[in-house]
């Protein structure tokens, strides 16, 4: 097992190098000169030339890449041109927000998705089944941007139940420890901040969670249907076990195996959904940082964001594979 993990970790290195080349080349071949973009419509030719030289943009691309990668292995991703902060620090400010949002979204997706899937499977072809599957179809096909705005208009605007975007209410100051607001508030014992952060997270979590929620529900439903037909379920029933035990211990546990994979895959996908969610709900996370930096052609930050995201996805995939083995004793890794 440990050898497997080490091998998987070593495999990450070529993946990350590939990603770094991809993002570097990508950033440099897209049209638009970074110096012109930075200086805007009021730049003089002298200041343009000076900036291009300063940024090393007058060097050949392979020189620039070498400089970038040798610094990057030391954890130095350069300085953000937009904010003049170290790019790494910018990413680390934004990352906890996205993690917090993704976890909340996936929790919403799980606590709604799995029960709906199980119930739909148990009452196949019932009204509940068809209605929930229609709802699922809508959930998958609605763009997050749209879902988010509708939720805001309804619960924030018309009904006044929840705040419209942001992390905390004005005037609440929360010291950052992990950067994950709910956790920080708990550590500090600040219930007011916790409550405020939670209220702010509800709508974005539902918006972002709507897509994995739908996928999870569908996956759970089909896995449950599949398993309920298996011999061992019939055996368990015929042994006279209570229906509840049969369902939970025998059926659900086995049905969860494919569901865990789906959850893992969805966690990776959430990053792309986070871009839109964070923009609509004014949350300062990684997705929004990526977009803002990309539009400003802020090389250093974009590169750091992409590499950190790639790292996260690789780690999540590894974690899912390990969980798989944990849930299904038949699976062995060597």
């Amino acid at each position, binding site marked *: 097992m440990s050898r497997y993990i080490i091998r998987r970790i070593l495999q990450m290195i070529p993946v990350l190098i590939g990603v770094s080349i991809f993002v570097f080349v990508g950033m440099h071949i*897209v*049209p*638009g000169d*970074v110096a*012109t*973009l930075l*200086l*805007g419509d*009021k*730049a*003089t030719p002298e200041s343009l030339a000076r*900036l291009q030289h*300063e940024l090393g943009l007058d060097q050949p691309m392979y020189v620039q890449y070498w400089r970038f990668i040798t610094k990057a292995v030391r954890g130095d991703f350069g*300085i953000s*041109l*937009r*904010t*003049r902060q170290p790019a790494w*620090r*910018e990413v*680390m*400010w*934004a*990352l*906890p927000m996205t*993690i917090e949002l993704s976890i909340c979204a996936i929790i919403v997706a*799980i606590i709604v998705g799995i029960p709906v899937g199980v119930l739909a499977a148990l009452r196949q072809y019932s009204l509940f089944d068809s209605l929930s599957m229609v709802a699922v179809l809508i959930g998958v096909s609605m763009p997050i941007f749209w879902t988010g*705005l509708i939720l805001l*208009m309804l619960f924030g*605007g018309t009904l006044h139940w929840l705040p*419209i*975007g942001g*992390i905390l209410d*004005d*005037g*609440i*100051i*929360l*010291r*950052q420890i*992990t*950067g*994950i607001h709910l956790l920080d508030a708990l550590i500090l014992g600040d219930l*007011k901040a916790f409550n405020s952060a939670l209220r702010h997270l509800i709508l974005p979590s539902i918006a972002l969670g709507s897509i994995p929620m739908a996928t999870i529900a569908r996956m759970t439903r089909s896995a449950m249907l599949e398993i309920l037909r298996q011999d061992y379920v019939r055996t368990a029933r015929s042994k006279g076990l209570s229906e509840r035990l049969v369902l*939970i211990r025998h059926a659900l*546990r086995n049905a969860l195996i494919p569901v865990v994979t789906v*959850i*893992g895959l969805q*966690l990776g996908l959430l990053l792309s959904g986070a871009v839109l969610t964070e*923009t609509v*709900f004014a949350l*300062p996370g990684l997705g929004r*940082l990526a977009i*803002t930096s990309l539009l400003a052609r802020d090389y250093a930050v974009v590169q750091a964001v992409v590499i950190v995201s790639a790292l*996260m996805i690789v*780690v*999540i995939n590894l*974690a899912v594979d390990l*969980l798989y083995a944990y*849930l299904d004793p038949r699976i062995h890794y060597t």
Partner: protein
Amino acid sequence: MRKRVFTVLSMLVLVSLVLGACGPAATPTPAPAQPTTAPQATTAPQPTTPPPTQPPAEKTLVIAIGADATYLDPESVMNNESGFVMSCIFDGLTKYKKGTSEPGPGLAERWDISPDGKVYTFYLRKGVTFHDGTPFNADAVLKELDRVKNPDNPYYVYKQEGVHSFADFTWGIVDSYEKLDDYTVKITLKEPHAPFLASIAMVWSGIMSPAAVEKWGFDVNDHPVGTGPFKFVEWVRNDHITLEANKDYWGGAPKVDKLIFRVVPESSVRLLKLEQGEVHILADVNPDDYQRIQSNPALKLLEQPGLTINGIALIADAKPWDDVRVRQAVNYAVNKEEMNKFLYKDAAVTAATGMPPILMGYPKDLEPYPYDPEKAKQLLAEAGYPNGFKYKLLCYENPRGYNPVGIKMAVAVQEYLKEVGIELELETLEWGTFLATRRRADNKDLGMVGWSGDNGDPDNFLWEMFSTDNIPVGNTSHYSNPTLDELLRKARTVSDPAERAKLYEEACRIIHDDAPWLFINHTKHVRAIRANVEGFALNPLQMFWYMEDVELK
């Protein structure tokens, strides 16, 4: 079993937590550089200000901005959002008189200008202190200038990587600076430069506390200390910036206790927040929302003639545009009034020449080209193009300050010109590419063009965009007229306002007649506020906010 599912879930959570937790710890920076509450990091659990749990009648005013500020050192930044925030924290030597673009007293109470227009003696305001308690005096001014002008200064702003500031523009003309006594500073210019007082009234010339520069070094970008009506409190990146009232402000204590700039990227959400009362002032308003705001009694839409110009640069040195009749023809062919009404929702006035009518020296009787397609056809025929021609127009896509509708403007122009036989082919480029392409000396394509005034001086429009010296970068129409050059050069050096006004009047007429641009309009300066916000006045310099006057009823 249930335990196992729980373990699975908590493992998932844990993996992400570990990733997140290793983040801040891996940042090799000392505690004060942490993003939030940096100044009070040590005292955060017991804030020195009254805790927010018992606000007797604390008044907090919230302003929504579309993007975060980038950094808050006036000498090393030039973006709008940073400008908004800094205009509340800093004062310059001069300050625009409220509601005008005319420079008046700021940290300097008065000044003398030598007869040759090169030496400025500033008499500084006494008894002013920076927010950190440092006294404001001649030394503070000199240290600030030194940071911008002296490469040997350890905090020379250009030592920072990729710095792109306005300091070139505001202080660039300064040759030397010296202290005459504690409250008198003498600044000598390289050559007489009439727009100088207006330039140093800009946000970008705010004076920073020298003690703060010494304490923070280049990190002063995140810890701004000025003399203005509001003090910096905290900055949570990409979320909000909090300022609190400076009760000792020399211009009178502000009427609200706190000012929060909240970053809300999505414009429909910004408006929703305003409608719900979560924010009180919107910095950017989408033209499509004007009507919705005007019909809501809880909101007010404020508008004022803008310090902007918006149009299309005609390439004056390329056929067929080298013929003045062709350039005039397109000015007759486009119905600008109609565009203002339907595209700009009346938040624009038609342009007649190269600068907005609110500036000094604008000829009162100058009329924009009327919409007259017949006249346009006749001029085209006279110039030898009775059947029109085809040409390419370079466009940017997104809205800009001087043109909130973006490419829609070009599409409308295309339609009007089709009527007189000119076929425009539109090519849309990404903003950076657009700028770079349009500024190449060999570029012969027409281009969408615009400008927002920086210091409220006519020079900032006419010299930048119509002088031969600025071909091809500022003057993208490659228009060159020696008579105009002479007028503009003279107007730069004359200090007497009446005489300058006369020179600009003449310059405006020449530019109108020569029509190096298809002049379209001057978009207005628009902001939306809650109806209970009082004393918030617009002024032509959009960057400048006089928040000390604002009250929350």
